[in-house]
């Protein structure tokens, strides 16, 4: 590669993946229109899914995936040590996400269910978000991470400012888009207690909010359960719906 391609003072950016579906990584490659612009501002030093290079210092490290094996824990400490700003990316990394559903059952049962007698070969821990182990500077939520939000955060960090991320409910953006509320179609939705910033993409496409962005600050969980049960879910189903992405944050006992 020609040396004039990289300006020395461009921030070094790296992407790391842990236990996840890699959808967030793919979503970044889906920034086809923006990638050339982004690459003008940053030096991409590590992105295993798309490149071979490795580096040992990162201005910004983006972490995807939850931590679920003993080796994950060492690796995340190592990355934290080498990064200036650490951003957790996507539901798995920020709230545990779908992965954390397995935490609801005893880990032994889980392993046995999948591998039977061979279970001891495959160590596993409860799936936890990155912030449970190391300091996380910023979080980009969503399953998959929201592309507009990723761009917002990236731009803010490149400008040297803290990104301003919403903490209000998905309903806010849903109303700004003047969507018909799914409750009016008899469909229950977790939008009222889920952190927005996704532009209410699921309700806008007629699908209920699954809670993939985690709960708003001080969520009124009891009131939300009332809403779900008043709109036709059994208490058990309402709890399960709540736990879909948020098992790490809501241990099942706190909402029964």
């Amino acid at each position, binding site marked *: 590669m020609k040396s004039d391609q990289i300006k020395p003072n461009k921030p070094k950016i790296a992407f790391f993946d842990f236990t996840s579906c890699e959808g967030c990584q793919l979503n970044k490659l889906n920034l086809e229109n923006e990638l050339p612009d982004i690459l003008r501002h940053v030096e991409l030093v590590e992105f295993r899914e798309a490149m071979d290079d490795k580096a040992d210092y990162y201005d910004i490290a983006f972490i995807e995936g939850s931590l679920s094996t003993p080796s994950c824990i060492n690796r995340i400490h190592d990355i934290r040590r080498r990064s200036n700003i650490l951003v957790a990316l996507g539901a798995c990394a920020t709230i545990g996400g779908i992965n954390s559903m397995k935490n609801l059952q005893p880990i032994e049962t889980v392993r046995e269910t999948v591998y039977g007698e061979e279970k001891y070969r495959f160590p596993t821990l409860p799936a936890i978000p990155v912030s449970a182990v190391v300091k996380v500077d910023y979080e980009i939520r969503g399953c998959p991470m929201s592309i507009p939000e990723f761009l917002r955060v990236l731009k803010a960090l490149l*400008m040297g400012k803290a990104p301003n991320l919403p903490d209000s409910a998905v309903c806010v953006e849903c109303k700004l888009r003047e969507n018909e509320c799914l409750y009016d179609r008899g469909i229950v939705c977790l939008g009222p207690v889920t952190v927005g910033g996704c532009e209410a993409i699921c309700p806008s496409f007629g699908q209920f909010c699954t809670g993939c962005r985690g709960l708003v600050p001080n969520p009124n969980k009891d009131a939300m359960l009332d809403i779900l049960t008043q709109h036709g879910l059994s208490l058990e189903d309402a709890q399960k719906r709540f736990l879909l992405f948020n098992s790490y944050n809501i241990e099942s006992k706190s909402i029964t």
Partner: protein
Amino acid sequence: MSNHIRTGIEEPDRKMLELYYPEIAEITRTKQITELEKWFEIALPGNRDLNHQPGQFVQVSLFGFGEAPISVTSSPTKRGVFELCVRKVGTLTTAMHKLKPGDRIGIRGPFGHGFDLQKMEGKDILIIGGGIGIVPLRSLINTVIDRRSDFGRFIILYGAKTPGELLFKDELKSWREDPTIEYHVTVDQGTPDWDGNVGVITTLIPRLDLNLGNTIAAVVGPPIMYKFVLMALKSKRLPDENIYLSLERRMKCGVGKCGHCQINHSYVCQDGPVYHYPVIKQLPEAIQ
């Protein structure tokens, strides 16, 4: 498309209505006064006076970083330029700390109600400033100093968390040395080289000997300070009508539209930030 149809709303007078467009001003001098606070001297185009009252604020814009309400800390008696003092707490304030002379910022304002100088004339003035509250008060203090003969006794109480957090140290020194000013300072936590008062600001109040009917108190500080200062003033029997406070609320527009600063029916950016205490007593949300 026909535009001749007359509708209810007339063509607005645009000059008056350009509420949200900042004027571009230039930073002429800066000084880092503590790790967290930075002082700026700012010139409007043509060195026009800002024409503010002590206690008023401006909306400072740093494009790309946003806008924030910042009190004018210089006295209106200072002509041609004005001063701000900014504590680094978030996005915009952090970015402001990186600015240097020659850099440009957007300014809207001055906005709000400041201290009622007319009511203060001829009276004893009691300044009570906690932490960064000294910033807007400094504008009043310097006005009183510059127009010293218009006022009676001049008492300044200033409290900070630590000696390191005291602002405008040079001026504090001159206040202490000025025989016409009764200046008392205290810190919550002392340091080995601190030989002054230690304790919260309310501890300074009981010792004061006030001419109750003739004293006007101007109080600015963090939300938690007000309750205790007011209690202390009450036990001193200073009449409520003699107390002015400045309140801080979130603000987006500064001109009474965005709703963020509303306290009950009152808009801090319009009716405040400086309030007459009897008015505040009608606002249950003002001091919790």
